[in-house]
Every structure is written in structure tokens, then in C-alpha cells.
């Protein structure tokens, strides 16, 4: 059997690789980033973490130590297929790999919501802001608002403060009581993390405002001020609560969307998550998908954070080792002690978070006709409404194709889900499960040079 292909070198991919190596197996990790670590452990060439670096260094050290694990960083998969039990991935360096076992560890990307001015320079996603800080330490502005929903806003705001940025406020659109308790419910580590973020933010006198949102950004050529408002439980603006603040950048985050592009190309069965309606890979207790030999771990099976990703990665790595005949099922049991219950516990907690930090429908009332929905193709809300109400588009795909919304460079990664929700609302029926699945249908997963493509056949 050929070495296992691991697509994604974040926490789940790394922990799976380590388990495979421990079982005496070999694997190749492919990641588009220049270094291992994924979004969570994204770092500059010389790794330095403000916290939780030990786990990264331990995994990295073990991966480096095993000659059977190759890391091909800075490489993109542009196409994947699965036929007769064999997975093939084509890489943008012109090569391709095949294997009977493959782990989808492709993580998630930021979920964005548009609002007037969200396309101005100075507006970033929370994940994007943190990625820049982690990768280069560059400052994205001097005076910044962090807004959106979810526990991820806290570490982003804290790292901005630590980088010397003036954080004018953290705006959490949902009203969450006992934020710390919530985070603490999982384990001591989370409790410590949350306490640390709060300490940093309170020392910097950063106000944390519950039930507030940025509903507009304004400026001449880049962000100069934001309009913030109190929102009700449905995210609709409460009259008389509008405030205008000067600032030069904003970081907004609305949770994450699992990246199912590769999984979709491999033809695995997917579920639509009952809480946030994200499309996730359907896996069994061993993290194996509906396709024999194709495993998935981490955010691609449902947004759950680093601890869940590490646990699922281990389960998948051990199961792959068994499937490849590297270890017995008895041995696998010994190596898996506690993993299943750990996974259940964290998953439960992750789902609780998803419920608390849900995106509520009222956000659409922040839009005005000229608000850009698709930044790649510069498609406005008005244009999307037009293809539905004037041209008769009656489903997400047709509305997309007629308006070009989601047809640009990012292939709908930024706007796909949000546009599906907008179109569903305009049509009067929410996007169906299959329409949500369709968002991830990108046979060309990443752009590939035509020359590289032309040379493939040689």
C-alpha cells in the first residue's frame, strides 16, 4: 500500500501523521502554507507562540524525526479524484500522488457577512487579521474594532493588543451570558486561555460590548469610521442605538465554514450540520468517510476547534494504520484509550458554542442595494435581487450564474454561503441541503497554471 496522503498540515493533519508514523507507516502532508501548523498555529519562519506552542513543537518534532513522513508545504492541490478505491491528488507543482488512504484535513475558512463598506481597504476577517499578525507581525491599523460573533473574537482582539494595536472595542452580536464559564466548561486549558484574553483586554481597557455589531464602514478609499449599533436577538438594529466611531481598520468574524472542496471532489457523503447548516463530511467512529480509505478529521467534519481537531486526527491516524495493516485492532484499541469519549465531550461543547454564537437572519437588514456581496466580481445586493425578481432565477445556482456572484477568483469561498442565504431569502425558500453542498463543488480546487496543466500529459 502506498503512503497515506494527508491534505492539510494543521492540527488534525499533524496529529494523524504522528499516529501513522508511530505505527511504522509513512505519509505525505500537503499544505498550501509555507509551514506546518494550519490557521491555528500559523507562524513566521521562526516559530514563536504567545501560548499553546508546546503542542505544536512536540508534533513538529515528531514529524521531523520520522523519515517516513514527508511534508510538502507551499503546495496546493488543484484537483482530487477517487476511483476504484484509489485517491489521486494533482498538485500545482505539476506532480500527482495516488494512494489507497487519504485524510481530508482541510480545515475551515472565515465565514463573512457583508455590510455597507465591508469591501473597503482596512476591512478584514478576524481570521485574516490574525493570520497577518502571526505570519508577519504586521499591523493592520492603529485603531481597530473587532466585531462579529463567537469565542474567536477574543484571541484575535488579544493578539492585536499584544501587537500594539489600539483595540477600540470587541463587539459580540449575540448576547452571551457568562462567556468565561462557557469557555471554561471544557477544561482547564480553555479556562486559562479565556482568563488570559480577558486579562489582556481589560488591562488595555478594551470595552467588550454584547449585542452590538458593525453595520456600516465608511471612508474615502479606506476605512475612516464605522457605524455600530445595538442589535436584537435576531440581529436587527435597535432604533436609536446607532453610534459612529473613528477607526482605521476592522476585523470581523462570524465563525467558520469547513472547506469541503477536496472532500467534495473525492465524492464522499456529506451532512448538513443541524445547527449552523454548514456542510460537513459524514464520518464513522473511525473518522472514515463513505468512501473506503478516505478519512476526514478536524473542521471538515464540523467546526470544533483545535482540541477536537487533534483528537480526530489521532483517531483517523490510528484507523488508517489499522486499515493499512500496520497495527492490529487490539493494538489500535490500546493506542485509542480515551480518545472516543474525549471526542464526544469536545464535540458536545463545540455544538453548544455553535448554538450560542449562531448567525441570526436579521443581518440582512444591514444591507443596502449598493452593498457588494461578491467582492471578486463586485456584484451588489441589488443585482442579486434583480436576477431573482426580474430575471426569474429560482435557485441558488442560476442566481449565481446570472449575477456572477461567487464566480470570481475565490470561487465563492468568501461569499458562497452568505449568497446562498441571501438568494434563499429573496426566493422565499431557504437554500436546500443540496444547494449548500453545491457551494463546495469546485472541480478545479485552486487555480492551476495553464502551462503546468499542458505539461501534465508529457
Amino acid at each position, binding site marked *: 500500500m502506498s503512503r497515506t496522503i494527508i491534505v492539510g498540515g494543521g492540527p488534525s493533519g499533524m496529529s494523524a501523521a504522528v499516529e501513522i508514523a508511530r505505527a511504522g507507516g509513512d505519509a505525505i502532508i500537503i499544505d498550501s502554507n509555507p509551514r506546518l501548523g494550519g490557521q491555528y498555529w500559523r507562524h513566521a519562519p521562526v516559530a514563536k507562540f504567545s501560548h499553546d506552542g508546546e503542542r505544536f513543537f512536540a508534533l513538529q518534532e515528531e514529524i521531523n524525526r520520522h523519515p517516513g513522513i514527508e511534508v510538502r508545504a507551499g503546495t496546493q492541490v*488543484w*484537483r482530487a*479524484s477517487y476511483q476504484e478505491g484509489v485517491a489521486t491528488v*494533482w498538485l500545482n507543482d505539476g506532480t500527482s500522488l495516488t494512494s489507497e488512504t487519504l485524510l481530508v484535513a482541510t480545515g475551515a475558512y472565515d465565514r463573512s457577512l457583508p455590510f455597507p463598506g465591508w469591501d473597503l481597504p482596512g476591512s478584514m476577517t478576524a481570521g485574516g487579521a490574525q493570520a497577518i499578525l502571526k505570519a508577519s507581525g504586521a499591523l493592520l491599523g492603529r485603531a481597530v474594532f473587532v466585531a462579529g460573533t463567537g469565542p474567536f473574537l477574543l484571541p484575535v482582539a488579544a493578539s492585536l493588543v499584544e501587537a500594539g494595536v489600539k483595540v477600540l472595542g470587541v463587539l459580540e452580536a449575540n448576547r452571551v451570558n457568562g462567556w468565561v464559564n462557557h469557555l471554561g466548561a471544557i477544561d482547564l486549558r480553555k479556562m486559562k486561555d479565556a482568563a488570559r484574553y480577558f486579562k489582556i483586554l481589560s488591562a488595555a481597557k478594551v470595552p467588550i460590548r454584547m449585542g452590538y455589531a458593525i453595520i456600516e464602514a465608511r471612508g474615502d478609499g479606506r476605512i475612516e469610521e464605522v457605524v455600530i449599533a445595538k442589535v436584537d436577538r435576531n440581529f436587527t438594529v435597535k432604533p436609536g442605538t446607532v453610534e459612529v466611531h473613528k477607526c482605521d481598520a476592522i476585523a470581523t468574524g462570524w465563525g467558520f465554514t469547513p472547506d469541503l472542496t477536496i472532500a467534495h471532489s473525492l465524492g464522499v457523503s456529506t451532512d448538513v450540520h443541524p445547527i449552523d447548516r454548514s456542510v460537513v463530511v459524514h464520518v464513522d467512529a473511525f473518522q472514515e468517510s463513505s468512501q473506503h480509505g478516505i478519512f476526514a478529521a478536524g473542521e471538515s467534519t464540523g467546526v470544533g476547534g483545535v482540541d477536537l481537531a487533534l483528537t480526530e486526527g489521532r483517531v483517523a491516524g490510528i484507523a488508517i494504520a489499522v486499515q493499512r495493516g500496520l497495527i492490529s485492532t487490539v493494538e489500535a484499541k490500546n493506542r485509542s484509550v480515551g480518545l472516543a469519549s474525549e471526542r464526544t465531550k469536545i464535540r458536545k461543547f463545540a455544538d453548544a458554542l455553535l448554538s450560542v454564537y449562531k448567525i441570526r437572519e436579521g443581518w440582512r437588514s444591514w444591507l443596502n442595494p449598493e452593498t457588494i456581496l461578491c467582492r471578486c*466580481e463586485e456584484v451588489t445586493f441589488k443585482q442579486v435581487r434583480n*436576477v431573482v425578481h*426580474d*430575471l*426569474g*432565477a*429560482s*435557485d441558488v*445556482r*442560476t442566481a449565481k*450564474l*446570472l449575477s*456572477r456572484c461567487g*464566480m*470570481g*477568483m475565490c*470561487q465563492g469561498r468568501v461569499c458562497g454561503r452568505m449568497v446562498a442565504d441571501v438568494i434563499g431569502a429573496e426566493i422565499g425558500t431557504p437554500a436546500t441541503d443540496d444547494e449548500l453542498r453545491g457551494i463546495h463543488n*469546485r*472541480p*478545479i480546487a485552486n*487555480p*492551476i*497554471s*495553464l*502551462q503546468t*496543466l*499542458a505539461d*501534465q*500529459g508529457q
Partner: protein
Amino acid sequence: MKTADVVVIGAGVVGSSCALIMAEAGLKVIVVDRGPIAGGTTGAGEGNIMVSDKEIVPEIELAVRSRNAWFEIADRIGNNFELQAKGGIALSRTDAGMAGLRKLASHQNAHGIETIEVDGARLRELEPHMNPDIETAIHYPGDGQCQPMLSAAYFLRTVRHLKGEVWQRTEVLGFSKDKDGSITGVRTSKEEISTRYVVNATGTWAGDIARLAGSELSIMPRRGFILVTTPAPKLIHHKVYDADYVANVASDSPELQSSAVVEGTESGTILIGASRERIGFDSRINMAALERLAKQAISVFPVLSKLELLRVYRGFRPYSPDHLPVIGEDAKVKGLFHCAGHEGAGIGTAPGSGELLTAMILGKPTFMDATPFLPKRFQGVA
């Protein structure tokens, strides 16, 4: 029960052209499609409005009239569908190939298609990025392009404004006939429509509708891939293709065939078509087809080697046994009119096909002799 003068089955570019021209002629039209508008082959095409690749006289006549009809429609309802008279360039790098192109051009010229043989210097003016080893070609100013989905959508919008109706997600379940076997109605998943005329504009699925009506029609799918690049500044100004393309379209061989047809679009992406395979409705990506298209396109425009592939369209082009469209009344079922089997030329020849059918239904003279297109040629009736 609803009543209509004509029920058009199929909301692609062919069905919507028929519906538009019939509605403009004063007929009450209901368009029925089991899916969304432009959800089939129309949504996977380049938007070719080509006169340059037509060889057989009836095809040339249909293409020339259709090309002009496209621009007349744009004048009437507004050009909201990126229609442009960009012109085409047909090239070959072999003497034999060029001889073939010249012969075709003079034949086409005799039947109303403008053709201009251009030398290397002129070619560089028309297409500055073309490979310098290409020294001569035929320029067809008449070739055009549109955005096919938008075209169908705007045609149907006009149909609605003319009191017509468009029923999406409505399946045709069967047909009602009188004792002579003539169509009297269409049973749909929504409700029955009383009508004397039905237009079967369901492309690759036209055979199914014919069977449902108690007749038969052989329309088969031919798979085609089109590569879409990342957006770029305007590099390519015409529809540029090599002569092998024409040979391929007329070929009966099932295996993969391709030759580059390269062109820019208003949105900045460059389209590279078109492979052709007769392998049924298999929607998997054929790597060999993609590689070959990329290679051929780069050989014509070396600058393309610097661009990236962003998306791939795949579509199933409907073709008939003799590669001519099927336009006209069914030989067995009165009132059933077919308009299908346009293969890769469906976008371009849709308006002319709609005009032919409208004239047939209204009993008026057609702009050309439509005998070669009549369905009876496949229906065992002399």
C-alpha cells in the same frame, strides 16, 4: 385548466428564442421546464454565434439569418446579454489546412458569409498576442458572441412582459390528443395546459419528450469541456480557432477530439474550448481533454501559459444522426414541433430556428427551405 397558443418545453436558449419570437408574433406562450432557466446545455456553453464553422448550405443559411436575428433582437429588447460582433479567425499552420480553409471560405462566401484572408502583418493587428509562426488565416467579421444564460433569461423576461408565462420546476407528464391524434393539451406536474401546439426544445432530452408523445427522435449527448481562466486584461479580441475544429465537429469518431477555440469575455476570463466526446452523460472530468485544450491554446497564444485555469465547464451538446438540427413538425404527432439537436451551434442558431418554427406554426412562408431540418428524415416517413 390553463390555455395557451403554444407550450414550449425547455427554458434554454433554443426554447426561449422560440418563445420570444412566438410571443412577439402575438401568440400566448407558456414555457415549461423541469429545472431552472438555462439549467442545461445553455448554462455550459461559450455563447458562440458562429457563421465561420458552417459548411453545409442549409446550415449556412440558418446561421447567417440567426446571426442577424441576434442583433435585431438586441435592438428590440436591449442588449443585456453581452452580445458582440467580435469576429472570428480561423487558422491552420499547414499548407493543406490552409488550402482547405480557403476552399471552405470561398464556398461560404458564395452563400453570404463575409470572409477575408489575412496575412501575418494584418493578423498581428487583429491579435497582437498570436503565435508569430502563424502567417495566414481567414477572418470572419460576422462571428459573434453572447452570454447564453443571460440571453435566455432576458428573452424569457420579454416573454413574460408579452403576457407569456414561464413555469420552472415543472415536469411534463404527458400529452392529450384528440381522436385524430393531434395534440390538444400538455399534462404537467403543475396543471394541464390546453394547447394545439407544443415545441420540444429540450436539447439532449428531446428524444424522451418525443417518446412521451408517442413518437421517436434520436438526439444524443456529446460531452464538451471548456476551460475558464482567471480574469486578465483584454488579450484576445476575436474568436480564434484552428481548422481542425471544423473537421472535428463533423467527425463521427467517439474518442476525444479537441482543438483550441480561444476567446476573451466581457468579464475578463478567457474561454478555451472545445473538446468533444461521445460517451453519454458522464460528467467526470477527463484530464486528457483538459491537458490537450491547454496545450493547443498555448500553441496559438503563448501568452496564455502565464494565465491560470480557474474553472471548467462541462456540457452535453445535443446532436442528431446527421449533425443537422431537427426543426419542424413531428411526422407522427400533429401539433408537436421539435426544435433540438443543434449540437455546439445551439446558441448561435437559436433565433433563426425560432423564426422557422413560428412561421411553420402560423402557416407563413419560412425564410429558407427548411426541408433538410424536418424531423421526418429520421422518422421513417418519406
